[in-house]
């Protein structure tokens, strides 16, 4: 997870900040974090990728698993701060059809505060 901060709680939402390279190890750390926050009752999770330069296919697999888990718990997941290449990667995989993507963490937070604006 990110060097200075791993996560930030904002009301009933939590923002996670993954490392600059999401591979199997980093992906699993992210998954563990999500599990913890889901167990604590957080239903709105924003993953901010602004510090992430690369996500490999194993990282992508883990991300899909995370999304499944959150959706199973009727939670909400949003992405923000995606670099162009990571947006391309999620787009190739087809994740951008399922997950709302925002330019910044703030935009994502604004939207979760009025949840009904979100495409579900």
């Amino acid at each position: 997870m990110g060097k200075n901060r791993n996560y930030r709680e904002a009301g009933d939402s939590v923002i996670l900040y993954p490392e600059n390279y999401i591979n199997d190890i980093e992906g699993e750390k992210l998954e563990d974090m999500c599990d913890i926050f889901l167990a604590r009752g957080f239903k709105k999770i924003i993953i901010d990728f602004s510090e992430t330069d690369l996500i490999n296919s194993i990282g992508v697999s883990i991300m899909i698993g995370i999304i499944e888990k959150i959706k199973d718990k009727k939670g909400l997941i949003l992405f923000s701060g995606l670099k162009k290449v990571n947006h391309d990667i999620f787009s190739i995989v087809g994740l951008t059809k399922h997950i709302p993507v925002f330019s910044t963490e703030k935009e994502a937070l604004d939207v979760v505060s009025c949840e009904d604006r979100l495409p579900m």
Partner: protein
Amino acid sequence: MRDKLLFNICPEGEFFGRNREIDYIFRRATESHKSPNIFLTGRKWMGKTEVLRRVHRKLFWDQAHVVPVYYQFRRYGSVESFSEDYLKEVLKQYFAYKKREPRILKSEVSIDKLERLLIDSDSFELAEFISRHREAKKSGDKTAVLRNAISAPDLITLRSGIPIYLILDDLDLAPYINLFNEGPGIMKEFMEALNSGSFSFLAASSTKKVLEGGVSNGSIEAITLEGLDEELAVSMMMELCRQYNIEFDSEILTLAAFKLEGNPNYIKNLIWAAHRADKELVILKDFVDLYANELVDGNIGFAFRSSIHLKGLSDLRLLSACANAGKAVSEEDLAEKFRISPEEFRKTIDELGTAGLLEASLGSIKWVGDNVVKDYIFYIYETRVKGRSAEEVKTCFIRDGLKEGFNFKGAKIRGRFKEEAAELVKKFNGQSMLKVLFRNQAFSARFKNGPPKSVEKKIDEDLILPQIIGCFDTLRWEANETGAPILIAHGFQNSRYDSGNEVVWIIGVKEATAPFNLGDIENFVRRSIILKENFRATRIVRWVISKEGFTAEAQKRAEGEGIFSTDNVQFRIISDSIDDKAKSERLKSADKIVPVKEFEVVLPSATKAELVGARAVEEIGTEMGFDEDSIGQIKAALVEACINAFEHSKMKSTKVFLRFVASGDRLTIHVQNGGADFDKSAQSESIAETTSGLPHKRGWGLELMKGLMDEVRFEKLRGGTKIVMVKFLIKKGEGRDGQE
């Protein structure tokens, strides 16, 4: 555990680099229609038996389309003993497979006991073959005994509807089975039975000679098992060294892999020898000592002693003469020189042919053994014929080995560049190419040391390449010549196939680490004058290619003599554009040439090693002028390719080899592992969506590479696969496919 009950194979940790062949044969064997017969050939100890047994094992456990039957030929006392053994194995293995009981397969049962077993299991249709065998044997009808046995696979297939897949090992021993004493061999009849059968077979042999005389009815596919390529052989040695706690230096292992010609059995024996003797493989002498000992007293020497049957000193002299001749020798000359009767001579040649050492064809004999056997023949010749002591010959091996190893670096690269040059020339087919790519002096003046300068106009002229119809080396004419190897490329120009348009290119190829110098040019000029005599009526073009370029004097002399000259950079541009018509069109003017730059990175198997490659490509891409987004895409695709290469290497200590070729309009990335195939099928099989609508979790690597790069292709290599990815450089004002 279940595998132990089938035919013996080597432990998984010691098995390297044949998965591609095994998977391919397995796929062909299990195709729904009758698959083509396969003939697997390769030098002795190259691992053919291992491949066959692993194919058998896979067929036994992993499919239900065919019944695998493995049979290894040996020497038999009579045709009856072969027939009984063969019939017993066919019936026993068929029965074992049907019952899925591998214990039966390995059990040593007599034919009577097998008959009882079949009857007790109500397999009367199989037991019937044994009863017919007994009757034919009792009446002394050898032909009937043989026919009953060799027709069994076909009849069983027809009756059961489930085809047998016959795996025949050491087929080269089959011609030694005679129907009567000194009578005709069974080969013709046996092969007819195979070819007319309703089943398919896989046969392995050290020599292609068994293919002569109608072995195939046309539907045979030949696969040659070569030595492991250098990277794979070195990976194998490293892995074994680690397993046996042997200290090593990778340079020495590279040398050893080269000397042992990538032969997996030699490699294993050498490492075992190091383990037994508690030796390291750190310095050159470690290897040379072990090699000499292995040949003289070790397992390699033992294997040679037990498989090369020499009846006397005349056989040895004959073998030594062929091994050292360096070319085919006339049968007549040999028979006369060694005073051997024609019958004896034929017998000896046949025996040595079966041992995979000599090949007789059209009245001449050629040495076809490898260099390790050659060294062994040298050893026994020197000790038995010349009377030198074993220690003296061993010392000689060590001395020569040290000298050879010392010059190894140069030796290692010899041949590769020459092969590349020959391949390139064979692609000449009337293309138009800039003349400057064949004139090193002009090329250097224009492109070296800074941006292109404006020089003489005629370098922008085109050279129309001939249509080359064949390319070969000059060893036949220049056996004792020194200097750069020369290739002869024969062809026609102007698309006219008459004498006036016939052309011969005499091509000198220097691949040493020093540039082509004046001495080299003079040597080339002298030799080309002699070689020209072979093509008197033909137009001659002389071309020298030097990997390390040319000295100024050499450039000047080549220009003065009208000799084309090309260095590595020019060579790559020619090579690149000859494969790519579009690029060739774009290079209409010398101004468009941007010399190719190549970078190589070797990644060890370590956590996040792929990021080292990503970092390298970021530097290269930035230097080339790719924008940030494109660099991100290239990095991500490269990371995927590296992960795939490591994942599918199936070797703990493998390395991944990256080559980046930066040319004017594109970056080409080659990613190669030292092991098994990249698994394309696994990559693409799970791309559908899940029931929840989300994409499937696994198998996105290849899709990502394809999505992020402009071209992705797989190239099959010996013992592995290479991924080649291309990203085109889009400059300002240009668009992909002509789009803005």
